[in-house]
């Protein structure tokens, strides 16, 4: 144990003292925050139909269209230019305006009244950018809303009645537990990506540091005093502790920021103590599983390039997890979620997400943890065998039968 501790301590201190640790710790949240903020900011002005033109004889329709296009919070009031169809050459003028540089016009809508009053008018939409499907669908929605308003008005409803009828429906959470469904989903996503990133990053870190030791041949010196298993254990523990420290720093900062009210006043975004404890448990199990696979990959390969080819084996289950994560969040106790939360290679991420957003039950969580522990034991056994033989082999890249034979070596 003394040796494991020495190796782990060295790995930990060397990594935490490195400048890259500090940079990563600051840069990752900054980049993530910046990216999310930036995307949100850009999306606000993107395809929102801020300025459109309507060619219609019906001025009330143009006014209704403007009401419908305005967002519910009344933040951005769109500009609607209404032109009567009688105006000569109006479409040519608008076409030119669409092509003009610096024009804010997003497109124009031509409304042709129907032959009979019971039929719908037909619509022609000429956008500035053909691929702007967001504006297109918003205009279509707004046109439908305007038509509805027109019909309701003609059937004798007052505009106040119509407004209250057409306003968006607010769904309240029925259980009374928490009506911060959005916050729960956000925190589930947040924790998921945190775990995903740290497991992948630090798992690969283990593989890389094994390759580094192989290239520098330092392990020949180490193996003269300690067992390969101790080296492997020390490495996995040391690197894992670095990951955990980094996550702890981030979470502490995030909690401090939320508590002090700097970002988001929604305290419900914080996980409960039990959820936090389970985060640590699933993080550790996930990390152990993936880092021992990574250790085996590292021991099998001789260079970073070779490792990169093998990296896909490590990433596949993680990528799969991120493909099903949306399904899991929206349907946390459905069959797919259940299956993935028991499949050991996706269990750490998926079961933890289910713990936050669903109700997996104590037995299910315990079963998933047990399954993970069994899998980790098997993987560690295989990894330490491959590691033991693999680090002494160099030069030639081993093939599968050779690796299988390594498992039998004493």
């Amino acid at each position, binding site marked *: 144990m003394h040796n494991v501790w020495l190796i782990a301590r060295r790995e930990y201190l060397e990594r935490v003292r*490195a400048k890259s640790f500090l940079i990563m710790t600051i840069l990752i949240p900054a980049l993530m925050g910046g990216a999310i903020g930036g995307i949100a900011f850009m999306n606000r002005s993107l395809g929102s139909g801020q300025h459109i033109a309507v060619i219609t004889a019906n001025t009330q329709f143009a006014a209704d269209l403007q009401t419908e296009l305005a967002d519910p919070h009344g933040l951005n009031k769109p500009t609607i230019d209404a032109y009567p169809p009688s105006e000569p050459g109006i479409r040519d003028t608008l076409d030119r305006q669409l092509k003009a540089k610096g024009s804010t016009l997003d497109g124009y809508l031509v409304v042709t009244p129907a032959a009979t009053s019971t039929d719908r008018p037909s619509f022609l939409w000429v956008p500035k950018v053909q691929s702007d499907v967001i504006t297109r669908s918003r205009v279509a929605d707004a046109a439908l809303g305007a038509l509805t308003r027109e019909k309701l008005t003609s059937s004798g409803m007052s505009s106040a009645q119509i407004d209250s009828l057409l306003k968006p429906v607010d769904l309240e959470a029925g259980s009374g537990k928490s009506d911060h469904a959005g916050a729960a989903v956000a925190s589930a996503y947040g924790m998921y990506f945190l775990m995903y990133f740290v497991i992948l990053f630090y798992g690969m870190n283990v593989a890389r540091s094994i390759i580094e030791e192989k290239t520098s*041949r330092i392990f020949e*010196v180490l193996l*003269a005093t300690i067992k390969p298993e101790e080296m492997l254990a020390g490495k996995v523990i040391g690197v894992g502790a670095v990951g955990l420290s980094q996550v702890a720093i981030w979470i502490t900062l995030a909690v401090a920021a939320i508590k002090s009210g700097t970002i988001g006043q929604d305290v419900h975004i914080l996980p409960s103590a039990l959820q936090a404890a389970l985060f640590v448990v699933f993080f550790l199990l996930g990390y152990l599983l993936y880092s021992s696979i990574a250790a085996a990959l590292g021991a099998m390969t001789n260079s970073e390039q070779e490792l990169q080819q093998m990296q896909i084996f490590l990433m596949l289950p993680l990528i799969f997890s991120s493909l099903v994560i949306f399904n899991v969040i929206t349907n946390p106790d459905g069959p797919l979620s259940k299956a993935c939360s028991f499949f050991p290679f996706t269990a750490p991420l998926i079961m933890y997400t289910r713990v936050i957003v669903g109700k997996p039950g104590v037995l299910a969580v315990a079963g998933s943890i047990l399954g993970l522990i069994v899998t980790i034991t098997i993987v560690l056994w295989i990894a330490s065998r491959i590691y033991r033989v693999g680090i*002494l082999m160099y030069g030639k890249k081993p093939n599968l039968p050779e690796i299988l034979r390594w498992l039998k070596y004493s």
Partner: protein
Amino acid sequence: MPIVELQNIRKVYDTKVAVEGLTLAIEPGTMFGLLGPNGSGKTSSIRMMIGMTVPDSGTVNLFGQPFARTALHRVGYLPEERGLYKKMKVLDQLIFLGQLHNLSEVTARKRSLAWCERMEISEAIDKKTEELSKGMQQKIQFIAALLHEPDLIIMDEPFSGLDPVNAELLMTTLIDLRKEGKAILFSTHRMDQVEKLCDAIAIIFQGKLVLSGGMREIKSRYPRNRVQMIFEGDDSFLQHPGIAEFKNYSGIAEIKLTSPEAAQSVLSDAIARGTQVSRFEVMEPTLEEIFIETVKGTPEFLAAGGKIHA
């Protein structure tokens, strides 16, 4: 009681036999040379000696006991492939390696500083390993192998890459350690390097022991039938019946005699013919010659095409 005792050890990697039936013993206070060409199984044997790999059959005894990992704290190992953590500072690195050998941090630090002074690399202590020259890194690794004052010191190709001055420094240090009663195992393919140093040797070839014993005893087994001569004038004495073969590099002759006794007769013949002899040396065979002499007839040697990269 021998420090190391290998009994009939054998190791096979897949289809390649790395070591076959190797038996040897290293006594305390000796410098032991494990010799052989590249790929003959020296490193494989050492790895089994220190438990890095386990022999398929045969036994390994260290310090008179069957191999146990606890004995490794009495072994210092300088591997052939040098390796240090590149980004770590020299002193931290030495302390870490010392701690792995069960030293306390304080002792490891104290000894590291003393050794760095002895090896004349004190100025490197605070530098990162990657900033140092190769020779310096080698010295650090050398120190790392000795920090815990091992009773058995294993040096795999210790002089490769060292300049003569530093090689000499290493050699004197090792001789001092031998005086203290430590056993030193040298593994090298450069047989000429260990000729002066070693008390006992084992030569392996293709995984098999071909020759072993005390240096003097081995050398005495081979006849002193080689002469090196520096002369001026008449070279007709080279036709003397006591000379089996000769090479004459105009004034410097390498002669192989039919028997050691012929030496005196050759010398007097040369003088009688009026040749000016400025040097006449009867030489003992070098290890390399003994090695080639020994393996010449073996099927392995013939299979290797009669060539040895010694």
